[in-house]
């Protein structure tokens, strides 16, 4: 599906349409203070249209990886590309093509949902801000809350506004960092439905950090497992289930992977 991008003059990279939309090439990161290496030589290629589940224990380096892919952090070695654009040297081109929902999404609590969304839409260069907000809230089945202040919202409602801000500019890739944290079962199901619709109806590639393996098996098309900063597994979900025929659930498979390291 052809993605509509914001109005900026967009530089099209010299890549094939079927080339990976997310690429990690020897990605390594060490923190300046202490010098601890948190990501070791990650190599990964995620094709367009995937829903990629990025698994790993707490502190494995998942959020650091997302921070680099979303241009919030510069890696110390290697490269990362989104839709063929380098996350460091072509950061603005990357930013035009990505949406991001952090784990603890927060907003301006004293502003209304509309004011928050309008601000982020303008920063993304969205034309017809009002129309677009209405369209996105309609897509998320969330109309009618526009003029309520964010401080009155529940965690689930904030998460939906978080998703709305992430897709306002119709990005090619959406990064979700532990999107189910703090949601009740109904909220989790709603989120899963939205993720699937974003992928199937809007053609967006989804990169999702998560702990919730039951959700991964219902949503993702491929997975990667990160252990202490090293990518120890990367396959399609179908192949993963075939690789571990004796295991009854993805959770059991994941535990086995971790134990093998």
């Amino acid at each position, binding site marked *: 599906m052809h993605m509509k991008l914001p109005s900026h003059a967009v530089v099209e990279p010299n890549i094939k349409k079927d080339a990976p939309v997310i690429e990690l090439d020897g990605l390594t990161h060490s923190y300046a203070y202490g010098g601890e290496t948190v990501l070791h030589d990650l190599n990964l290629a995620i094709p367009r249209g995937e829903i990629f589940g990025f698994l790993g224990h707490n502190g494995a380096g998942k959020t650091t990886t997302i921070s680099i892919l979303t241009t919030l952090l510069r890696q110390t070695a290697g490269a990362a590309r989104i839709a063929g654009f380098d996350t460091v040297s072509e950061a603005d081109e990357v930013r035009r093509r990505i949406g991001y929902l*952090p784990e603890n999404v927060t*907003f301006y*609590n004293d502003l209304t949902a509309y004011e928050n969304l309008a601000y*982020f839409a303008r*920063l993304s260069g969205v*034309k017809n801000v009002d129309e677009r907000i209405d369209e996105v809230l309609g897509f998320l089945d969330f109309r009618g809350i526009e003029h309520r202040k964010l401080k009155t919202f529940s965690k689930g409602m904030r998460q939906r506004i978080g998703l709305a801000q992430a897709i306002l500019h119709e990005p090619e890739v959406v990064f979700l960092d532990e999107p189910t944290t703090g949601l009740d079962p109904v909220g989790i199901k709603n989120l899963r439905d939205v993720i699937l619709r974003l992928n199937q109806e809007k053609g967006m590639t989804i990169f999702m950090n998560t702990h919730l393996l039951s959700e991964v098996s219902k949503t993702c098309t491929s997975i990667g497992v990160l252990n202490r900063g090293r990518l120890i597994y990367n396959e399609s979900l179908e192949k993963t289930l075939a690789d571990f025929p004796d295991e009854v659930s993805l959770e059991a498979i994941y535990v086995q992977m971790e134990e093998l390291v």
Partner: protein
Amino acid sequence: MNTRAPSVFASVVRHELTTLAREKTFLLLLAIFMAMTFFSVYIGWFTRTTTEAIYHASVAYLAAQGVTSIVADPLTGVSPLLVFDNMLVYLLLIGALLAIVIGHRSFIRERAAGVLPLVFVRPISRAQYIGAKLLGVLLALTGIVFATYAVSAFSAAFIPALRLPAGGYAALLGFYAVSLVYLAFFAAVGLFFSVIMKNESTALFMPILVWVAAVFILPELTTGQNPVALLNPVTLTGAIPDQGSFFTAAHRLLSPFSVGQLYTRSALGMLGGGIGNSIASLFALLAYVGVAIGASAFALRRYAVTRDLYL
């Protein structure tokens, strides 16, 4: 229908002003400041007329006692614009605090809301963001200063006996323009510490410490035996008397760093209290503003946004 994409820069400036207008601390300080401005001209006027009344009563008393050689009216030749000198004190104290709050809140608001990662995953450069933030802060200060000018001019117009000299309102405008420079310095200091300090309380405490040093400690050291000079600005326009080697040396060494005195000298020059070295003081003040803005921009450029992901 307008289908043009809005400017990212303008969006940040607009957002800055919108959110500031909803800040309760800012609104409270602003209300206090405006009320004080309204009454300051009356206070200045009453002070002046009371001084003159006491002088004339003293003259009448001394004449009745047969004294023939009486010192001239001390207010003769003093610019009527100096009835506004209370504003100098208000700006020096409350105005600077207001500016610190504006600069501080400008960035702390974003940090506290945890929205910086959502901002910087969008196609906005740090330079654009910093420029827009600073412009928003300066526009807010400009609005406040010119509202203050309007209130001062309005209240002065209601004192029939107060006759400002030709060009009096223009001189008053000059005074407020200099005040804007002084306030911009403290707003930039507030912004700077809000970026570099991890703790929100410390981020507010540090610019207040700078303010205390610049407005109280340094002037005390540099004006030596006349420590209240800053709160009685007219005395600063005269030559500083010989106060012994320590205070002379302190004056030479520290007065270039005394932002409060630099402001007082340049602002009083505008009110006709003696130009003296007011232009040099104004340029020094502008240099401080440049340094404070540069430091804020540098700090913001190096700010690690990822630390806000773990709030």
